[in-house]
C-alpha cells in the first residue's frame, strides 16, 4: 500500500504545498482561493482531493506536500468516516506537525455533540491541531485561510523564526479533557 510520505521528494525554493482533503468538496474551493489570494511572498500550491490514497498516476508530477488538511463537515457522518479511513494512508512522519483538522458547522444546533467530540479525540490521539471554521461567510473563510497559512509556513520550513513543525504541533495539538469532574 503506497503511503504518502513527506520527505521522499526535494523541496522547491520558496514554495509550500498544501493538500485539502474533503469528502463533500464544498469548502475546499473557497478555502483554496482565499489561501492563494492572501499569500504574496511565498508560492503556495493548493491541491484538492476527496480522500486518500491519492491517484497513483500523478505520483511523479506531484510536488512534496508540506501540510495535509482534513476538512470534516459535522453535519454528515460520512465526512468523518472518510477522514478516519484516509488517515491510514499517511506515513507516520506526517503526524509530526504536518497534519491539521478543520471542522465546519461546529456551532450548528442540529449537530450532536458526540461528533465534535469524536473528531477531537481522533485529533488528540494523532497529536494534531483542530481548527473550527465558519464556511458560510467570507470573513470566516478568510480567517480559516489565515490560520492555515500560519501553520503551513511553519511546516514548510519558511517561517522567519526558527520554529519546527513538531514544536508548533506540540503547542497547538488538540487535547480532550478525559475526566471533567475533578473540579
Amino acid at each position, binding site marked *: 500500500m503506497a503511503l504518502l510520505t513527506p520527505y521522499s521528494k526535494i523541496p522547491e525554493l520558496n514554495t509550500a504545498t498544501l493538500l485539502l482533503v474533503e469528502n463533500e468538496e464544498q469548502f475546499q474551493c473557497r478555502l483554496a482561493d482565499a489561501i492563494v489570494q492572501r499569500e504574496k511572498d511565498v508560492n503556495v500550491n493548493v491541491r484538492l482531493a476527496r480522500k486518500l490514497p491519492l491517484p497513483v498516476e500523478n505520483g511523479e508530477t506531484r510536488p512534496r506536500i508540506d501540510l495535509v488538511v482534513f476538512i470534516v463537515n459535522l*453535519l454528515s457522518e460520512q465526512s468523518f468516516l472518510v477522514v478516519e479511513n484516509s488517515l491510514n494512508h499517511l506515513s507516520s512522519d506526517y503526524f509530526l506537525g504536518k497534519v491539521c483538522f478543520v471542522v465546519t458547522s*461546529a456551532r450548528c444546533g442540529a449537530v450532536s455533540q458526540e461528533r465534535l467530540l469524536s473528531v477531537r479525540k481522533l485529533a488528540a490521539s494523532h497529536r494534531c491541531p483542530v481548527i*473550527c471554521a465558519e464556511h458560510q461567510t467570507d470573513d470566516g473563510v478568510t480567517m480559516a485561510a489565515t490560520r492555515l497559512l500560519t501553520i503551513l509556513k511553519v511546516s514548510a520550513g519558511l517561517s522567519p523564526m526558527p520554529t519546527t513543525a513538531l514544536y508548533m504541533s506540540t503547542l497547538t495539538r488538540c487535547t480532550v479533557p478525559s475526566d471533567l469532574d475533578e*473540579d
Partner: protein
Amino acid sequence: MMGGRAVGMRGSEMEGRSSAVNTPVRRPVTRRSKSYGRSCVEPPSLFWQTPGHLTTLGHRIPTSRRAAKSHNITEKVDPEQVALLLDGEWKLSYVTPLFLFRHTQLKLYSKRLAAFIIAEKQQGVAVEVGLEAGFRVSFSAVLGMAETEEDAETVFIQIFSRPVFGADGSKPVWQGWLTCVNGDPEYLRSLPPDFTSLPLFCSRGAESLSALVKSWFQRTFDCSFGALGLSSSTLHWLAALWTGCHPAAGIRYLKLGWTMPTQPPLDIEYSVDPQDAWELWNSVHKEDGADERISVDEVQSFINGLETHFFRHFKIYLSSGTLTKVSTALGSAHHHGKIKMSSSDYISTVLTLLTECALLKTPV
C-alpha cells in the same frame, strides 16, 4: 499630641478599608464555558466562578442507558390524563429552571395566564371589532409521572377558547406540558432552593398561543425557552430502544427517513420489517441478564448494519445525509423536535431520554 493620635488612628482605619477593597480583585478568575475556539491547550484553572456541578452537565454524555421496560403507567397516573399525553404530536422545547414556581398555586397561575392572553390579543385594538372570544386556561398537575424524588411533578396546561355565543367551549385550542422524568440527580440537587427544574416543554396548537404562553412564563418565573431539536444520535437511541421492545409489544414497522444533501434534496424512507429489525438488534445487543443496559456502541452497530444493507442495494451512503424521522407503532420522532408517543407503556423511557436531551441542551 491628641491631634497627632487622631491622625494616626484615621490612617490605620483608612488602610484597613482599602485592603478590604483590594484583595478580592487580585484573585485570577477564569470561567469555563463551552466556547467556540476551544481547540488549543486548556489553560490551568485556578478559581471557578460558578459551582462546578452546573458546568459539567454539558460534558457528560451517557454511553449506556437502561433498556426500555414496559411500565404500566396507568397504575400511577390517572388514565384520562395519560390519554391526553398520547393524543398527538408534540413540539419540544427546553426550559431553564423556574424561579418560585409553586405547585400549590396552579389556580392562580391559570387566572393570570388567561388575563395575560386576553390582554395581549387585545393589544393595539382600541375598539372591539368583531366577536370577542375569551379564553379559559387550566393548569393541572399530572401526578405520578416523576420517577425519582428529585423530579418535580408534571404540569399540564390547556387553553380553551370561550366563544361569545355560548357554544360549548370544552375543546382545547392549545395544550402544553412541562415535565422532568429521571433528570440528572446531581444537577437537580445542586440547584438553589427556590428553583424548580422542569426542563422539557411539549406543546401543541397555534404557534401564536405557544409564543404567548412562553413569554408569560419568561416574565413570571424568569426562565427561558429554546427549541429542542432531536439530533441524529437521539434518533438512533430511539430506534434501538423501540426495536428492543418488539417481542414485548409488536412495533409493526420500523421506518427511518433520511434527507440527502443533493440538488434537489432527496428524501429517502426506509421501512424495515419488524422481525428482521429485531433479529439484527438481537445479534448486536448482548443480553446482560439482570441489568439490561444498552451501550452506545450497540446502537451504532445496529444503525451501521441498516446503512450498509441499504448501500449494498442502492449504492447510496446514508451517513452522508441527515436522519430526519424514526417511527414505529410505539411512536414517532422527528429531527425538528416533534415527538409522538402512541403506547402508554413506554412513556417513561422516552421521556427520560427527552429530559436528558433537554438538560444537555440547556445553556448553563
